[in-house]
């Protein structure tokens, strides 16, 4: 037969050669960039459509700037686009004086109208963090009216849901807060030049911002690539597809898996982290057997070895021994709380109690939390509590959470610095909602006292009381204190954190 081995060798040889050729081509097309920084990010930036749904992170610190920022270390609200402000009507009205001469990336001036336009986007949507109304007093003065006289009102103005100030030209029809976002224009260090939904966004330096600050842009392009899957993002960094991974740390998901940071570091990648007032906790279903019993809640707190849990993350996070927040949070150190790991005590409490089937639910969209939950399950098993672990898809987790169909769940309190106050509002204040983590007459009363207080020193005292009350009632079982992280290739320089956000205006990439 003539179709012989020779032919076979010929064909396979051809195949192998072509594949090899393709892979060489692959290598050749890989560009070595010096003036482009590629960021791997979990979410689409949502720069079209509803302007209230713009992604919570990157556009809001690259493209947009906020009126004010929050500094956790001093517990102060600090100026940003606003130069200064007056609090009127006992706190129900805040009047901001804006900085002058700030230009949008299209060259138009940022003024009170732009601020009103921005916040009207929330007002018309009756958003839960929206002010009641926004008034333009003159070109550079704008007033916000609120229903309650709370210091929380400041937090609302710079929380994640609140927006950075954008040009009314960003939407169509122009200036209509109900309009559709077509081209996000802000005052921040970068401007959007290209946006492909679900794939990437290209940002370039905003000339006006750099002129104003007297800085020199060191990169020409910032590309934000959307890579929804956490593992793929890490692989992308490893394979050189992206230079930097940054977290979307709003709601406890879509971040660089913490348990991979060490491996990345070992392989030469740089890891920047910053502590944030963000804590992973076990939430008790405190309205239901058996965790309506304070003793049982204490037993869980005794049973959890927080050091072991932190080991999952190879030391990138701190074990949550001293209360609901890390010590740098206002009042936390002074509260002087210390959780105890004492499995014997836990056993004693549990012993002889008929607790029935206990379910622990966890949102499985993060591999980290699945690991944490499995370890918690094992630790509780060691003290005689048999736990049924349910790893749930995001939606079902929410649904079970909302219906109260669980005993324990893995959840988080706090967040980035600027969401700190809002999270206390979201987690501890009435009205009762499924996403609240613990409410009792005592704790709730103390939490309200915190967000009402305008005076910093008094507020600190109230914080301490609130922390202590929560600890006494064993309201939650804190596990570990989260960080915000940036993982970058070794040749990336100049990314730094401001508050809890990575900033790129002085970033460059070495050849």
């Amino acid at each position, binding site marked *: 037969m003539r179709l012989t081995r020779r032919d076979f060798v010929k064909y396979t040889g051809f*195949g192998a050669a072509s*594949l090899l050729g*393709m892979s060489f081509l692959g290598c050749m097309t890989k560009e070595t960039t010096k003036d482009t920084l590629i960021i791997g990010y979990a979410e689409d930036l949502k720069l079209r459509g509803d302007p209230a749904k713009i992604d919570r992170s990157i556009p809001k610190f690259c493209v947009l700037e906020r009126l004010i920022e929050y500094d956790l270390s001093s517990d102060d609200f600090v100026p940003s686009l606003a130069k200064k402000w007056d609090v009127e009507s006992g706190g129900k009205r805040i009047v901001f004086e804006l900085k002058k001469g700030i230009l949008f990336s299209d060259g138009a001036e940022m003024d009170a109208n732009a601020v009103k336009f921005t916040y009207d986007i929330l007002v018309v949507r009756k958003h839960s963090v929206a002010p009641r109304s926004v008034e333009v007093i003159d070109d550079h003065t704008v007033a916000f009216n609120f229903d309650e006289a709370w210091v929380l009102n400041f937090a609302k103005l710079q929380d994640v849901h609140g927006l950075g100030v954008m040009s009314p030209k960003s939407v169509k029809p122009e200036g209509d807060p109900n309009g559709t976002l077509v081209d996000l224009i802000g005052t921040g260090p970068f401007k959007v030049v290209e946006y492909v939904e679900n794939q990437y966004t290209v940002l370039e330096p905003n000339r006006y911002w750099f002129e104003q600050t007297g800085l020199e842009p060191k990169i020409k392009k910032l590309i934000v690539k959307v890579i929804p899957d956490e593992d793929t993002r890490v692989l992308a960094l490893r394979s050189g597809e992206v230079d930097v991974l940054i977290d979307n740390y709003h709601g406890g998901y879509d971040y660089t898996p913490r348990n991979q940071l060490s491996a990345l570091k070992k392989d030469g990648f740089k890891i920047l982290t910053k502590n944030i007032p963000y804590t992973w906790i076990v939430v008790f279903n405190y309205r239901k057997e058996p965790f309506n019993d304070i003793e049982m809640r204490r037993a869980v707190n005794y049973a959890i070895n927080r050091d072991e849990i932190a080991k999952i993350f190879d030391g990138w996070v701190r074990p949550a021994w001293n209360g609901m927040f890390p010590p740098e949070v206002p009042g936390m150190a002074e509260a002087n709380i210390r959780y105890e790991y004492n499995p014997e005590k836990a056993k004693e409490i549990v012993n002889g109690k008929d607790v029935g089937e206990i379910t622990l639910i966890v949102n499985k969209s993060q591999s980290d939390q699945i690991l944490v939950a499995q370890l918690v399950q094992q630790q509780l098993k060691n003290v005689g509590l048999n736990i049924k672990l349910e790893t749930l898809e995001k939606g079902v987790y929410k649904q079970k959470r909302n219906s109260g169909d669980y005993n324990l769940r893995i959840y988080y309190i706090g967040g980035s610095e600027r969401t700190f106050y809002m999270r206390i509002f979201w987690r501890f204040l009435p009205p009762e909602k499924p996403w609240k983590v613990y409410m009792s007459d005592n704790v709730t009363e103390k939490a309200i006292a915190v967000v009402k207080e305008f005076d910093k020193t008094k507020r600190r005292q109230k914080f301490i009381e609130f922390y202590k009350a929560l600890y006494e009632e064993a309201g939650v079982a804190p596990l570990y204190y989260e960080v915000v992280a940036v993982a970058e290739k070794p040749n990336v320089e100049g990314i730094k954190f401001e508050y809890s956000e990575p900033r790129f205006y002085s970033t460059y990439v070495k050849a």
Partner: protein
Amino acid sequence: MLRYIARRALQIIPTILGISIISFSLLYIFPGDPAEFIVEARYGVEPTQEMVEKIRIEMGLDKPFVVQYFNWLSKAVRGDFGISWTEDKTVMEVILERLPISAELFFATFAISVVFALILGVISAVHKDKAIDHICRIYSLLGISIPSFWLGLILIWIFSVQLHLLPAFGCCELKHLILPVLTWCFSFMAIKTRFVRASLLEELSKNYVITARAKGLPEKLVVFRHALRNALIPIITYFSLSLHHLIVGSIMVEVVFSWPGLGSLLVESVFKRDFPVVQALVFLSGVLLITMNLVVDLLYAVIDPRIRYGD
């Protein structure tokens, strides 16, 4: 011939109806209220009663199941699957966006697989029971046994992590295409190789091949002019049938390599609970499969002279 086409086309209607019922019912296995999900998914806020009510009326969710089904079906056959629950776009727009990306992966795989499957299949059949045939057969069994997601990860480990030769993920350039195509080809080609081998062997066992050999034809002519020419009829039809993989054909490969095609879209939509998209994908892939079956039948009629010239 025309009558034959018409009859076959009519025959697939009940099947398509069946598939539409299955895909439509996906949403109605819900004990709860889909309207609530829509509100949550679309607005990202806790649903209020009035919002839910509004959505319910807007989407016709207040009507009886059968009415809703026929509404859905009558739109679906026109390619209108409603609006995505998570994006402000129609389902069709979402799908059409991803289709070319899937198509790129599919056609690259398809082309390579067809060529190599033919070569391997012929070699294997011609050298039946020799070493090379055993290798081909073991390969074709391995091809259907080795999970593509594992193979993909192993390839990533070799080519991306260890050798830094190829990107582990990404889309739309040649270098991104290589690993996913390689991974998919491994199984795709295996099935095809097996089929080519079996078809050719069947033809080689037929009497006309003995006639051809008895004529003293060189084996090359016996295989290529006689047997393969006949075997090509089932092979071509079978290969065209696999065109249905165009829609959601390579879920695992797409997921492993984060290839933003329709397979990934399906999985994402499942996780995001964007059920209109899931419905549409199930329906469309089913319809494509049925249609390909029909096309293949007709193709058969076209390329086989027995049928072409038959009465």
